[in-house]
């Protein structure tokens, strides 16, 4: 009896071992040659700063992408092929980002890396991806200098910093000029930004594009994001008596700047911020009244964006996932989560199906598939379309103007995505 049981065990063990060997062979093949010929999965690495100084918004962006990938799997995968997700943490550190990217490629055999939230982080990942012929699918970093010229494995779904400047100037021209009662070239504009790749690129884009409109820039202040006190920046800006302030900080410096502006009674008719000004930390710190009327320029905070003008597919995904995001993570899906949803959507709904149809999912097939993307405005959850240039930039990406109204960051410009009309003028500090 015991001998028979032992024989049965040996047979079962042998069958299991054989099955495991076959499965291992199948997975190994997938890793080496990508998906194709019936291999079972597409391997996608998510590489964002989920710890460290950039983690609060980096985590939002990562979660946005992940929701879309999981949504795709729940709806049958990409043309029947399931997605396997590998999550990495760049720890808000470019050096770590490069190491983790290489590890994802070597050990997890990812075919595409989706990242990176910050320009400095993306700059470290891009050469690793290029060297290994893996696509860096960038959904968040906006500095124009992220990838080397000629890097054909870089694709960016979100608009570069030039789109921030374009949206700012469009809003100045199309709305604020009339409210201020001045033509755009007579509006006194002050520009301030953190001095990293993000803030600097936005500042430079504003100056460059502003020249074409004879923008009257009365101050341009760069400051370190890690400053312990931003009173000097406020004092310098206040001395130039601007009508409008365009400011691009990250998360850490935003509360310090706003408190310093309040202390020094620095009032302007309109302030258009970005990044830190759209974070939930900003409204938590100062309350709804404290931030009322502050504008923000970025891709849309999709939780408060009008989805009625989107295509049926984009609208369905946005309406479902922005609700799911809020219930899962306890706060609204604002700008950076929206970047994740939008970038993930273009990847799984448009590009990967073509790559799978081509026979093998590789860096080259993904890039070739991205070159054929042609989504009209309204065709993605962020409201803009998608068409990638030779350098991988989404030529149809746009930034929009939002405004804090009653504690919510609401899209107010342009009209087709707006949830509310822009309110002008911004309350003075005495009125807050």
């Amino acid at each position, binding site marked *: 009896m015991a001998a028979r049981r032992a024989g049965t065990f040996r047979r079962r063990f042998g069958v299991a071992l054989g099955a495991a060997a076959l499965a291992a062979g199948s997975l190994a093949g997938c890793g080496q040659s990508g998906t194709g010929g019936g291999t079972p999965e597409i391997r996608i690495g998510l590489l964002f700063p989920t710890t460290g100084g*950039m*983690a609060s918004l980096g*985590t939002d962006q990562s979660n946005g992408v992940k929701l879309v990938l999981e949504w795709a799997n729940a709806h049958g995968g990409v043309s029947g092929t399931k997605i396997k997700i590998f999550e990495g943490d760049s720890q808000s550190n470019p050096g770590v980002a490069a190491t983790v990217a290489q590890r994802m490629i070597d050990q997890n055999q990812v075919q595409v890396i989706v990242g990176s939230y910050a320009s400095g982080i993306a700059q470290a990942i891009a050469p690793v991806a290029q060297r290994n012929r893996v696509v860096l699918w960038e959904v968040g970093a906006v500095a124009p200098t992220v990838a080397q010229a000629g890097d054909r494995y870089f694709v960016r779904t979100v608009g570069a910093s030039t789109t921030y400047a374009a949206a700012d100037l469009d809003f100045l021209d199309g709305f604020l000029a009339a409210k201020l009662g001045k033509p755009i070239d007579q509006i006194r504009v002050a520009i301030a930004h953190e001095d990293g790749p993000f803030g600097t690129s936005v500042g430079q884009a504003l100056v460059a594009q502003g020249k074409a409109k004879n923008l009257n820039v009365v101050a341009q*202040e760069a*400051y370190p994001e890690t400053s312990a006190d931003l009173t*000097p920046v406020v*004092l310098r800006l206040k001395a130039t008596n601007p009508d409008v302030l365009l400011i691009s900080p990250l998360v850490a410096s935003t509360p310090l700047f706003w408190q310093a502006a309040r202390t020094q009674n620095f009032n302007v008719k309109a302030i258009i911020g970005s990044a830190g000004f759209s974070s939930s930390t900003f409204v938590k*710190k100062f309350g709804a009244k404290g931030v009322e009327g502050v504008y923000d320029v970025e891709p849309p905070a999709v939780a408060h964006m009008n989805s009625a003008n989107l295509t049926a597919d984009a609208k369905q995904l946005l309406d479902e996932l922005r609700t799911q995001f809020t219930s899962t993570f306890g706060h609204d899906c604002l700008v950076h989560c929206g970047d994740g949803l939008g970038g993930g959507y273009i990847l799984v709904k448009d590009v990967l199906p073509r790559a799978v149809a081509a026979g093998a999912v590789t860096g080259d097939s993904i890039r070739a598939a991205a070159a054929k993307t042609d989504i009209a405005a309204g065709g993605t959850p962020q409201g803009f379309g998608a068409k990638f240039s030779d350098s991988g930039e989404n030529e149809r990406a746009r930034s929009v103007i939002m405004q804090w109204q009653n504690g919510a960051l609401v899209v107010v410009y342009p009209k087709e995505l707006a949830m509310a009309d822009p309110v002008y003028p911004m309350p003075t500090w005495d009125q807050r």
Partner: protein
Amino acid sequence: MQLASAAASGIALGAIYALVAAGLNLIFGVVKIINFAQGAMLTVALYGVYLLDTHLGINPYLTLPVVVVAMGALGYVVHIGLIDRVLGKERASQLLITFGLAMALKNACLAVFGADHLSVTVAFGSRVVDLGGVRVTVASLIALGGAALTMAFLYGFLHRTRAGTAIRAVAQQPDSARLAGINARQMYALAFAIGTALAGVAAVLMSPIYAIEPDIGDAFGVMAFIVVILGGLGSVFGAAATALLIGVAQSVFATMINVQMSTAFVFLVFIVLMIVRPNGLFGRTTRVA
């Protein structure tokens, strides 16, 4: 008026630097250990204030006794458990153990609280006081007053109490102090505990001003080192005066000349002064008070 506002903002910033540097200075002056974990202790204390404020509804300023006692206890445990074991060993071991402790504390904060920028709010703290056109927040004035009181308390403790006198004796002549019957190991532990408790005082006073996140101790920790070295290692008032000077110089330079270069300016001055006055601005080294 712009210059006066810049100077006032610099004084407020200097008060914060002085508070953070005070504990570091005491620990170096007595225990003779360069404590890289002081910034991380500040971070831990800030999260302590946050917990007491958000979970128990205690006004951040009223958390002072709890935070100070808790940080003092933490400092005592850290000294007995870690620092005491490497005191007689080479300097590299001491540096690495405090560096390791800093990393452990920072990452523990990250694991427990996440990376979000948290904040505590004191309604009257953000109110603005107009002093003849120079505007400062109530929170900054409280930090300045708190820093002055803390320095006075520290000086009084070191000069007017038996424990303080024993600490100074151990700092200046450890062997002679032992011969006089002072338990030097206990005094080291006490100094480390008080130094860590001072990080708690700094945390309480700066909590309404700064967002709380795992890296917040880094920048203040580095500036505290500059303050301590320039002020004369172990000199309480030297460090406090230096902290105010650095705060004002940094703020005025940033306002009148260039914001981006202001930190570089402070470090440049630091390098020059280290060459010209290697014993610090006030020429005192490794004495307590």
